[in-house]
């Protein structure tokens, strides 16, 4: 699966498209990470727990996006966008969306 965030796949020709595909997940960290984060707020610096939370979530949403494109029979996703929303305290929603296409040499 080729994924890009531009309108084309360089060096290949888009022959067919299947419409929009999306992948999303909602995740929370455990209480320990939340506590550490609130302490970190005092001194500043990177919140490693939350960085990890968002990284994991982003990877999963991209994975789900790819899975959905595969189900449609695509071999590439172009123009991917990520969006994040805080849906509750300590929880984050990560979504990825793009256009599923089939490309040829």
């Amino acid at each position: 699966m080729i994924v890009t965030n531009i309108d084309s796949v360089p060096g290949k020709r888009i022959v067919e498209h299947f419409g929009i595909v999306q992948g999303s997940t909602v995740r929370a960290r455990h209480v320990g990470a939340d506590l550490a984060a609130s302490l970190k707020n005092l001194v500043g610096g990177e919140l490693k727990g939350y960085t990890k939370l968002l990284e994991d979530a982003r990877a999963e949403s991209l994975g789900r996006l790819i899975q959905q494109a595969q189900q449609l029979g695509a071999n590439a996703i172009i123009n991917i966008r990520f969006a994040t929303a805080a849906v509750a305290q300590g929880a984050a929603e990560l979504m990825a969306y793009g256009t599923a296409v089939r490309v040829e040499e």
Partner: protein
Amino acid sequence: MDALIYFILFIFVGYISGTIIEKKHYLDIEVREKKYLNLPAISSKNIEDESRILSANLVSGSVVISLDYFKRFLAGLRNVVGGRIHSYETLLDRSRREAVLRMKENASSMNADMILNIRFQTLGVGQKANKKGNIGCFEVVAYGTAVKLKPGT
């Protein structure tokens, strides 16, 4: 003590009604998705040859959706342990598909042939309205450019 009984009642009512509403909504979404399947909606800008485009118009679809008591409580529990919040996943999935469908309905009422450059936005609303600070209510917006194409390929 009374609070515990109310709590069990809320959870029970929330679970039953939430499950029924969700099932209904999914069935409805599936039917409408089939109906609008032939209207392409994509996130890219330049997939069409621009000379074929007759007219362009902004279209959008939005939905505000809320969680039931059971799911909100479950999310609260999940927040302690960490991990995937399943109860929010269905909510967001449903609302996003609903927003896309409303956008498509909007576009098809304009007799558009295609929607280009779709963007999504999610927003927690009503945070001030519920004093408990738990956002259980979202607005999802999908917007894009509906275009009409010259007839014939």
